């Protein structure tokens, strides 16, 4: 559920990182926070226990591009993966526009990956939402682990429905494919918003450039 403010010319989207406990959701946000210029992001807010386990949520606002004169903002959240925080997860998922499901590639975590995904479906359903209608990207994290399960098995386990979703092998610790994952879900969120909009797009009024390349991972703003 995007928030569009025609007075301030802002569009805000909410993206939530879900997944297995200790799967790397917070590490994803920490990496993003560390690599984006400070003027294009807010502080990373973590409501965590003394042992750095997410208690309520982590939150990172990032300002991205200007599209048709509208500033586009993404509010990135994580939710706690532990079973006992089911109610908390459900609260944070309210109004979600896009989801990144962070799975742990360790072979012994497959059952938790699956049950976490099933719980996500239920949490969304309890909010009156269906996973089928929400942009979703899978991230198979911790691919650097020596005992990581084959990607094909993770795909079979999690990404076996129709339509198949995009998935990324990643290592949030090193940053490998962290931004690729975020870019993919952000694009899907914008695509959905675009298709839902009534007015036709005017390509000449677009203020942003297409994909950029380079070494700096700064969020784009024009």
């Amino acid at each position, binding site marked *: *559920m*995007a*928030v*569009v*403010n*025609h*007075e301030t010319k802002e569009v*805000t989207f*909410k993206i939530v990182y879900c997944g297995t406990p200790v799967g790397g959701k917070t590490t994803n946000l920490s990496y993003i926070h560390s*690599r984006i210029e400070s003027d294009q992001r*807010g*502080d990373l*807010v973590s*409501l965590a226990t003394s042992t750095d386990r997410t208690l*309520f*949520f982590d939150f990172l*606002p990032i300002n991205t*591009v200007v*599209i*048709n004169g509208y500033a*586009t*903002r993404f*509010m990135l*959240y994580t939710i706690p993966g532990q079973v006992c925080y089911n109610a*908390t997860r459900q*609260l944070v998922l*309210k*109004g979600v526009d896009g989801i990144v499901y962070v799975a742990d590639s360790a072979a012994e975590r497959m059952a938790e990956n699956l049950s976490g995904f099933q719980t996500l479906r239920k949490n969304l359903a309890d909010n009156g939402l269906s996973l089928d209608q929400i942009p979703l990207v899978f991230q198979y994290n911790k691919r650097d682990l020596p005992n990581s399960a084959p990607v094909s098995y993770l*795909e079979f386990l999690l990404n076996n429905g129709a339509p198949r979703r995009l*998935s990324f*092998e*990643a290592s949030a610790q090193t*940053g490998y*494919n962290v*931004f*690729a994952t*975020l*870019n*993919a879900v*952000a*694009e899907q969120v*914008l*695509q959905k*918003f*675009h298709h*839902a*909009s*009534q*007015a*036709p*797009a005017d*390509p000449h009024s*677009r203020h*942003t450039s297409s994909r950029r*390349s*380079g070494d*700096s*991972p*700064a969020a*784009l703003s024009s």
Partner: protein
Amino acid sequence: MSTRLNDSCGNVVLGALQSRAIRHSLNDYRDCAEAIFSALLDESGSVLMESGVMPAEQSATLGALANGAFIAVRELGRRLGDDACEGLYHQGGIRHFHIAPLSQTTFLFTVFGNDTKFGIIRSALAKFGPTLRDKMQNAEHAASPVTPSEGDLVLAPSDGTGAS
């Protein structure tokens, strides 16, 4: 009473004229309440509108935290068997805040200092709360002219080999 400003796609849309009207009422409320800062929050944690200045903090962060705090407390009340939640009040040393529901999905967040009594906040809320709620309810459900396209956005260069 619903105050959703959803368009047909479920997005929350604030038209420019409606936004100005709501902002006018929000400013009136903040003046009356003698508050430092006030904001309208959506259940997703987004700041729909704000009035006043909160230096050294981003309103987006405040909105996310305030929204999370209120929804969590309301849910706690529900699980204890009480569906009503008239507000959440925090008394600090120099900064205090109050969060009150305008509807099931919209909240009014108010920050005030030691110069302001909590009773004034409640009084201002009673006076301007219905007005704010009505103006939001009457806001036109405008379709968004914002039409980003596929490929419009890249948050950062790709950092790996891409999707599986």
